[in-house]
């Protein structure tokens, strides 16, 4: 799996250590992009966001779904609380459940917990982020910048790749 983004969960914004840590993060990011097989060695107590993608949307469709896997290699619990993107009015974190053949979708008020040492998959049929109030359709193949908001790590900007609607469905279309 391709790792598109990694960032230290803590410290990146501290002014004293900010620059060197950012440098390390950049080096790791570049390394991750250049050699995906090495990416699993990112173990600086950071977050890794794998394969962020969004579903293409139609003209007039005012919301779209976004998916990714978030890994928290740190020792502290993390939470994805929201986000922002230039292409939509709001970014919300949602859960979905099926009970008795009925689909229910709900915003997660307290965000999505990412346990220390754990990873959480945002995928069809489960957790997802939603781009609410889309300002324009998401076109297949384009990259959409999304700034994810984490309770500890703060803001992390990730490029979401827009995939066909069939992507990630039950038949595993790519």
């Amino acid at each position, binding site marked *: 799996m391709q790792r598109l983004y990694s960032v230290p969960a803590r410290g990146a914004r501290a002014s004293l250590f900010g620059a060197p840590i950012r440098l390390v993060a950049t080096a790791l990011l570049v390394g991750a992009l250049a050699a995906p097989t090495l990416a699993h060695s990112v173990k600086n107590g950071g977050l890794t966001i794998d394969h962020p993608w969004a579903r*293409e949307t*139609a003209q007039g469709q005012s919301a779209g779904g976004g998916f990714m896997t978030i890994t928290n290699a740190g020792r502290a619990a993390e939470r994805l609380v929201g986000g922002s993107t230039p292409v939509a009015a709001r970014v919300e974190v*949602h859960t979905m459940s099926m009970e008795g053949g009925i689909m229910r979708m709900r915003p997660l008020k307290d965000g999505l917990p990412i346990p220390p040492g754990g990873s959480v998959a945002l995928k069809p049929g489960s957790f997802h982020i939603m781009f609410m109030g889309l300002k324009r359709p998401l076109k297949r193949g384009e990259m959409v910048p999304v700034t994810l908001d984490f309770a500890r790590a703060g803001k992390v900007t990730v490029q979401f790749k827009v995939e066909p609607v069939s992507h990630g469905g039950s038949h595993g279309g790519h």
Partner: protein
Amino acid sequence: MADIEPRPLARARLWLWLLVALAALGLGVLLAMRLITNGPPEVIAGAPADVGQHFSLVDRDGKPVTAETLKGTPYAIFFGFTRCPDVCPTTLSRMAHLRKAMGADGDKFRIVFVSVDSGHDSPADVGAYVDLFGTPILGLTGSEAQIADAAQSFRVFYQKVPVEGGDYTIDHSAFVILMDRDGRLQSLLSDQDSEEAALAELRRLIA
């Protein structure tokens, strides 16, 4: 005058919704039974005979589509809304995929998508949405009353649920209803059905 009307009307509507919810639950139970016994759609024989018999919706151009219009060709009908990020695109993608897997036989049934979000999805919006799936899908919607009638006719549950910020989401039944060429209920497909089982059901539908 105005203050006499609303109360009984609201009560009647509440009862109507209760009935719809119960009916949807009934279909859900039938679906569960079929899934548990893994079997044959005979179980569906217990379903009411009038499922999907009376509805009137509109296509992307605003032209009316009724149970009569659809007769003659079997169809797979699914209710959802375009802002549904997940189960709707997944289900419609799966139907498109199953159709392709059937080769030439895939053209022998219609895929119908009904948006239950009259407050948001215009007929043209629904048309643009179904075009995403790369296979002909008939996108329908209607006025709030038309949608409520259609959902009741198909025993489909849906309910607007307010969320923070004044917006709403919609809970809805997630099964696909298979209707034969005479416009009668054959069976239900769920995302729990294996591809083989779903294909077998669709082949039976067009047989």
